[in-house]
């Protein structure tokens, strides 16, 4: 899982975002590559979450643009979905399904773990190849193990504690081995064990992925190679 996923670049170019009269971001620019950790810091309401969502391509900028490049090539929306992994406080899973059912559903809907990986090899997009090479995605069970949820896979997510849900989010974000990992408040709701797990995950990912972290925790801010400071 630590193979180089080389050549990914995230470019945020003079991006502004407003929701009606509320201006959340004004002309923010940043750039990060594989092997780099970018930290976005700032007080509450300064737009950290919005910036992360822009980088995840689930929010559109009001002005400016965001580019996702793999090996120099700009990615389409469909390809971007394959290269992005997001952990966010606004992420929720299906409470009426178990953790395993949730992960299996997302894997199926992402096109992972189907038997026709040969068909995937025929798809020309390098992003697709990178994400779906056989063996580069884990089974739901092994993901649960990795994130300290072993044995709780059959429990309904509705019964999960907030710490367990947070760890499940990591399983969700990393299941397809994305070159871009976006973490909004990475250690929210986690105990010491969970925080250590997250630090390990970031350390591992930092070498082979492009990581963006939105946080106010000083220990996490330290992890960054690049710092973006937002003002309210």
């Amino acid at each position, binding site marked *: 899982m630590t193979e180089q996923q080389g050549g990914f670049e995230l470019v945020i170019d003079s991006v502004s975002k407003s929701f009606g009269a509320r201006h959340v971001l004004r002309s923010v620019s940043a750039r990060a590559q594989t092997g780099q950790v970018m930290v976005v810091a700032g007080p509450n309401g300064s737009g950290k979450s919005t910036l992360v969502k822009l980088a*995840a391509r*689930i*929010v*559109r900028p009001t002005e400016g643009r965001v580019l996702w490049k793999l090996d120099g090539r700009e990615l389409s*929306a*469909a390809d971007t*979905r394959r290269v*992005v992994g*997001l952990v*966010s406080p*606004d*992420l*929720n*899973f*299906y*409470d*009426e*399904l178990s953790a395993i*059912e949730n992960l299996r*559903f*997302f894997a*199926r*809907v*992402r*096109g992972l773990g*189907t038997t*026709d990986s040969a*068909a*995937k090899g*025929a*798809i020309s997009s390098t992003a697709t190849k990178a994400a779906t090479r056989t063996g580069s995605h884990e089974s739901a069970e092994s993901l649960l193990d990795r994130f300290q949820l072993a044995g709780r896979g059959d429990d309904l997510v509705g019964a999960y504690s907030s710490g367990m849900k947070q760890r499940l989010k990591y399983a*969700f974000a990393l299941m397809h081995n994305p070159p871009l990992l976006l973490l909004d408040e990475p250690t929210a709701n986690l105990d010491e064990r969970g925080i250590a797990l997250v630090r390990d995950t970031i350390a591992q990912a930092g070498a082979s992925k492009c990581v963006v972290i939105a946080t106010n925790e000083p220990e996490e801010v330290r992890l960054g190679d690049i710092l973006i400071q937002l003002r309210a």
Partner: protein
Amino acid sequence: MTSSSNCAHEVLAVLAKDLRSEYRTRYALSAVLLFAVTALAVVSFSVSPYSLEADAQSAFLWIVLFFSAMSGLSRSFVREEEARTAMALRLAAAPEAVYLGKLLFNITLQGAVAIVVVPLFLVLMDIAPAHPGLLVWAAVLGTLALASSSTIIAAVVSRANAKGALFAVLAFPVTLPGLSSAIRATTAALQGAVGRVGTAGDLRALAAYSVLMIATSLLLFDFVWND
């Protein structure tokens, strides 16, 4: 876009997830069936069945089916937004897969309603349809038409504020061409010989309407689903 076999897997994954969620919670189906049966009961005991012509009977049936659709077919999208699971779905699934999966779910749901309502309707109104085969076709294609036009509107409504009444207000004008063809075909099926020839045209119109709605929805869905 992914190859078609992958797309089918993804569509079916969305459908299976929606069916499983629905089975576990049973929100939509119970609300819809309750509404449908209540409406049928009201119609049935407020009007003497023998005083109604075939066209009025047909209209009543489709009014009940239409409003059942209005109470049930927005659930699939509204639930994603209310439970805030839409973000995860947006990140993982292609918009086309989401739309087609939920379309299939709506067809299934509306189909289940029709399977209960139509026979119950025939029993309560004491109707022996002159052309039962035609009635089945009209019910099937009409169900397809209702689901085809409602699904994208359900998506639109799920992204707006006042979800309840807005769905029916938006859906009615768009659904009307399909609805009127279904009513006419059903009238012919209940009534008999009159207008049998024209009915093939009505059924074809229903099918064409569904295809048009689905094709247009596929083109437009991305703009609704993604900001």
